[in-house]
Structures are given as C-alpha cells and as structure tokens.
C-alpha cells in the first residue's frame, strides 16, 4: 500500500519515509528509528540510550517490531536505521512481552531504583518472580557511564569487569582510579542514580590526579 502511494508521488527530498504505529514519519538519512520517533514526539522507552554517546543497545527496552514485505523482526530501535516503506510497531504483543519481562527482571536486579519501579509500573509490572540478590542495588550495567567516560571525557576511569551474570562496574583491582578527573559526567548520565553513591569508588586521590588516560 505504501509502495503504491510512493510510486505515484515520489518524495523530492532525501528523507526516509516510513511509518511508526500507523503514523507517517520522515527521517534524515542517518537517523535511527528511535531518533525519528523522538523527533516526532513518539515515545519509545529506553534506559541505555543517551544522545551524547554512541548507542550501545544493552537495555533492549527500545525494541520495536518492524515489518517490510513479509519480513517481520523485533529489533532495537536505537541501533536500527529505517528504510523506505518500513512499518514500525512500538507496542505490539511481541514488543510488550520483551519489555515486561526485562522490567520484571530489572525489579529483581535493581530493587532499590525508584526510576525502574516507576517505569515498570507504567507497563503494569509491579512485582517480580525472580530472586533478589542485593536489595540495595541500583546499577543495571547499562554502560552509559563507561561510554561517556571514554567517548566524551576521553579518559577510561571505569569499566566493566568479568562477564555475564558476574559483570560488574568497577575500576582495575577495585581501587580508586587516578585517571578519573572527577568531572561527574558518569553521575549525570546514570539513568538510576546508582553512580551517585559509588563515585568515591572510582575517583582517587585528588592530589595525585594526572588527568591522563594512561595513568595507573
């Protein structure tokens, strides 16, 4: 249907014409679906996306269902670029299934976070079936702080250690890191405020700070 309309009246601009939840939208050539949605004031939830850093695609709350001809996919809207004629559904049952489960699991992972509780409640998730390991935890390991420190500040004061379920936000040998310049960018981009409490585990002795990324 869309294709027919477009063949009748070919767009003169170099914008990508597609639809989100039935609404016709236009995207600049390098925009992602999420950016297009935001430009059109359509809401897609996300915890790890931040305009200051490269999209990382870790929280998967921004997943949407895309349809093109016979191909139906569920993808992360923060990483996917639209193509002409694409149909995007932001609240299909498959999408909602992913979001609800992720939020229910997050309630167990970061039980102390007010932000996550509120977001989960918006999706009707108010309790969790999963085991709570640390009732004080707020960090969801979304990676915003690591990315902003590397990409924007230009130092790598903090990183992820270990992998999988053991993955932790930490500094080498878990001691404060003199590479940290104490700028607080990580705190400001944190979606849950988890870094507020642990900033001192990252920033080291002010007098010995060199501000150089390779300092040990």
């Amino acid at each position, binding site marked *: 249907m869309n294709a027919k309309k477009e063949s009748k009246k070919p767009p003169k601009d170099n914008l990508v014409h597609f639809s989100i939840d039935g609404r016709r939208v236009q995207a600049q050539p390098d925009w992602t679906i999420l950016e297009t949605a935001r430009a059109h004031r359509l809401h897609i939830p996300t915890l790890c996306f931040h305009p200051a850093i490269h999209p990382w695609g870790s929280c998967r709350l921004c997943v949407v269902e895309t349809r093109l001809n016979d191909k139906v996919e569920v993808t992360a809207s923060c990483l996917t670029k639209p193509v002409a004629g694409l149909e995007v559904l932001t609240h299909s049952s498959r999408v909602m299934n992913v979001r609800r489960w992720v939020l229910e699991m997050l309630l167990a992972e970061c039980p102390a976070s007010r932000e996550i509780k509120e977001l989960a409640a918006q999706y009707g998730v108010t309790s969790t079936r999963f085991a709570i390991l640390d009732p004080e935890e707020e960090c969801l390991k979304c990676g915003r702080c690591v990315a902003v420190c590397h990409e924007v500040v230009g*130092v*790598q004061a903090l*990183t992820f250690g270990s992998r999988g379920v053991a993955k932790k936000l930490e500094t*080498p040998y878990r001691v404060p*890191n003199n590479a940290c310049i104490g700028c607080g960018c990580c705190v400001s981009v944190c979606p849950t405020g988890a870094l507020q409490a642990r900033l001192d585990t990252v920033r080291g002795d002010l007098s010995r700070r060199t501000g150089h990324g390779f300092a040990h």
Partner: protein
Amino acid sequence: MALSLLLIYGEKSKMREILMKTRPQDLDSILENYPRRPQHLIGVLQDVQAAFNYISPEHLARICDHVGVPVTQAWSVATFYKSFSLEPRGEHSIKVCLGTTCHLKGGERLAEACERDLGIERGQTTADQRFSLDTVKCVGACAEAPVVMVDEDYLGRASISSLKKEFKRR
C-alpha cells in the same frame, strides 16, 4: 618437527623443557615479541599467563604501557576471558570436563568428588599450591566421556577412584 616427534615418542618432560626454552620466561623477552599495538594485548596476556601462571598487577601495568592501552581496558579483557587468572594458580591444573556428553555420563559427580577430595571449590587452588581445580566446557574428547584433563594429559572414562590415584601420583 623435532618437537612433534618427541610428542610421539612420549618424551613429555623433554618436550616441556624445549617449550620452556623456546617460550620466553621473563616479561621483557615476551614483550619484545610483540609490536607496540593495542591489538596484541590478548597475545601478550596469554604468553604472560603461560609463563607465570598468572598476571600480576606489576605485569599488567607494564603490558599496558607496552601495547598502549589504559589499565581499565586490560582489566576488562583479563577478567572477561576465562583463560586469564589474576591470582597465582597451582602447580598442576585439573580440568573436569562438563561438556554435554560428560554431563550425561556423570561429569558433575566427578567435579564434586574432586572438590571433596581436594577440599577446594572449582576455580580455587589448594593451600599448598599443588592443584588448581577448574571445570571446562568440552575438551573435544566426547567419545571417552567423562574426561578429566590433568595438566596436558587426557584421562578418558575417568572415575572417582582413578582420579584419586592420579592425584597421589602427581
């Protein structure tokens, strides 16, 4: 070529000797083998792990200087991959295979028996630094399941009693 012949003749101690000689034993000569580029981080870490059985904080700092990466990146790499250890490992490594076939044929029981016998949990080293116990996901000898690797030897169709004997022998 000579090396492989020794393997076939089974002269393992000699082979190890040769390997030790060809494999640099101090950090400087390991670093010499690698150009100063970030992509060699994993290679250097592997050689250091092989030579010293673990990666000490001093070595990690010097490796970072050499290949030009921040310590944070080296930390995330060294903790991500399973073959690196940041603490000293035991003299002999015991790896109980928990591949699918070994699982079906009782590998989990073997691992538990080792834990009881050595008095440590998997991933740990005995107090006398003699043995380190680990589990691995398939060593590719499934036809002989359950398999335990002690150092570089494969023990096929392993049982609790054959393992105990093996520990005593070492």
